[in-house]
């Protein structure tokens, strides 16, 4: 069913275009129903599992950004760095200035996107392994920056005891009530909402002309620029959107854990965000979500193997990449209708 997501429906006549848009929307509703209704009903009593799902949703939200940089043909390992920036923006504003979390959440994304634009403009000229290396350095640089400015970030001590999100009201009308101490469901729902909004926006973007332009950059930047596409502008836009996702996700995690340390997001997290995309499949908007779901749930399921948990998990991952180099979702596509290429 997932294969409809990345179907290039731009080339279908109007009527078909509309019907092919129905399937992804249906899939979106299915995910929403599973997340918002089924999971709380089945696992609602198990706080630990709710936390796992909350983390999974937020992590896949951040990974959507990495997926987008893959779409323009860049291996992005800076995502954890920008998530850390988002986390600190929220932590500092909430703890020092008492700004509402609901303002900080989008603001953190905006700050991360802005910094991403400034850094991305020169850095995005690089490709392949060079871009991967420099983004890896960016993640590390963010951690070191957080360590070196204790006046602002409190250094290694971190910013702790962040307040829970307060009430969100508009014109005296309460839209979201204040989060209660110890309650897990509010964060669970918030993470799910972010995930679905993030997925929806990615889908809109991917199926639009902007998505086609991004794919053209991955395949041949020279050819794209010869057609009048401002390559530099589009890749910065893609990177900024990616950083926005990271910033918002970082702000979410800071508030969920009620603290931020320079080690909250590290290089390893960047690698994980990237791996979720790989495991799920780079051709599909929904790939990062599938990747995060499969990897995190299999890790939890292997819990009973105790100290062998990580070994077995890594072995499974290697098998997964070997057998399905294009991600889990590529199997779905292969078993579906034969590819258009057979027309030739």
């Amino acid at each position, binding site marked *: 069913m997932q294969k409809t997501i990345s179907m290039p429906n731009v080339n279908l006549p109007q009527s078909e275009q509309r019907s092919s848009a129905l399937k992804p929307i249906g899939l979106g509703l299915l995910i929403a129903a599973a997340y918002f209704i089924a999971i709380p009903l089945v696992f609602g009593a198990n706080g630990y599992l709710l936390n796992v799902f909350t983390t999974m949703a937020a992590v896949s939200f951040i990974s959507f950004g990495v997926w987008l940089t893959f779409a323009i043909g860049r291996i992005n390992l800076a995502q954890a760095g920008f998530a850390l920036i988002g986390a600190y923006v929220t932590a500092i504003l909430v703890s020092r200035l008492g700004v509402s979390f609901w303002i900080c959440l989008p603001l953190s994304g905006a700050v991360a996107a802005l910094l991403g634009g400034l850094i991305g403009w020169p850095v995005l000229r690089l490709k392949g392994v060079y871009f991967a290396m420099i983004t890896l350095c960016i993640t590390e640089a963010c951690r070191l920056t957080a360590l070196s400015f204790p006046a602002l970030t409190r250094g290694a001590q971190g910013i702790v005891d962040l307040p829970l999100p307060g009430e969100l009201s508009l014109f005296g009308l309460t839209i979201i009530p204040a989060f209660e101490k110890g309650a897990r469901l509010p964060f669970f729902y918030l993470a799910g909402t972010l995930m679905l909004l993030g997925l929806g926006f990615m889908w809109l973007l991917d199926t639009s002309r902007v998505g086609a332009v991004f794919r053209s950059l991955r395949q041949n930047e020279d050819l794209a620029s010869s057609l009048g596409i*401002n390559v530099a502008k589009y890749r910065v836009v893609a990177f900024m959107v990616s950083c926005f996702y990271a910033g918002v996700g970082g702000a979410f995690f800071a508030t969920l854990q009620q603290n931020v340390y320079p080690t909250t997001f590290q290089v390893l997290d960047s690698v994980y965000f990237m791996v979720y995309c790989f495991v799920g499949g780079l051709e599909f908007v929904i790939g990062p979500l599938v990747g995060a779901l499969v990897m995190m749930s299999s890790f939890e399921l292997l819990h009973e193997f105790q100290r062998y948990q990580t070994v077995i998990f890594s072995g499974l991952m290697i098998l997964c990449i070997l057998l399905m180099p294009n991600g889990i979702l590529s199997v779905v596509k292969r078993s579906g209708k034969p590819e*258009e290429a057979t027309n030739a």
Partner: protein
Amino acid sequence: MLEVRGLTKIFGGLTAVKDLNFTLDAGEILSIIGPNGAGKSTCFKLIASFLTPTTGTVRFNGKDITGIGPHAVARHGIVRTFQENTSFQDMTVREAVLLGYQKDCKASLAGMIFRSPRARRDEREAGDYADHVLDMLGMTGLANTVSAALPHGMLRNLGIAVALAARPKLILLDEPFAGLNSDETKRGVELIRKIRDEGVTPILVEHDMTAVMSVSERIVVVSFGSKIAEGTPAEIQQNEKVIEAYLGAEDTEIGL
């Protein structure tokens, strides 16, 4: 229409293009020929702003477009094709051609993502134009074929189709006949005339002498980066310098 003045490009110690001058009128089919490494492709890259010339200017319809960047040159109406079978591998033929229409899309970024009425109108116009281009190249039947699955000749045509979809005024064709059989070449020559009749002025860089002689109205011969001759195909075939510098003993080859 196009005016190249004193164009020079030096790579380190190598002068790839040296003081090249030529002009081109709208609707004229011009070919640039010369031995391998003569600087023909470099010349194309300089015109299309993929490279910045060391000295010299390129003027298009009176405007100086020297070194303004490939996408900016494209927006002025100059689009190039590539020597290799360059295409968007994963896209279907129609998707690639639709993308070619990009520079005439007027919707904003957000408009495109959220499907504003302007963006939808762009898509409709792009679709109509893509169908027109595919029809012109006889590729309608291949519209939904993935580019990577196309045979060589069709891939070459796709490159031209994508460039045409950008609605250029001037199209730079880099070796459009390379690797084509004589049948395909004949159709290619027809195609270039058709492109010209559509109001797009073509410039060719080409090695296939038979094709060059039959399609060109004027030929510029380049050797070691400098222009050594210019004229009609008949004049070039008689030109002593050309025969000596370029064709050597194989002068029978330029006869049709």
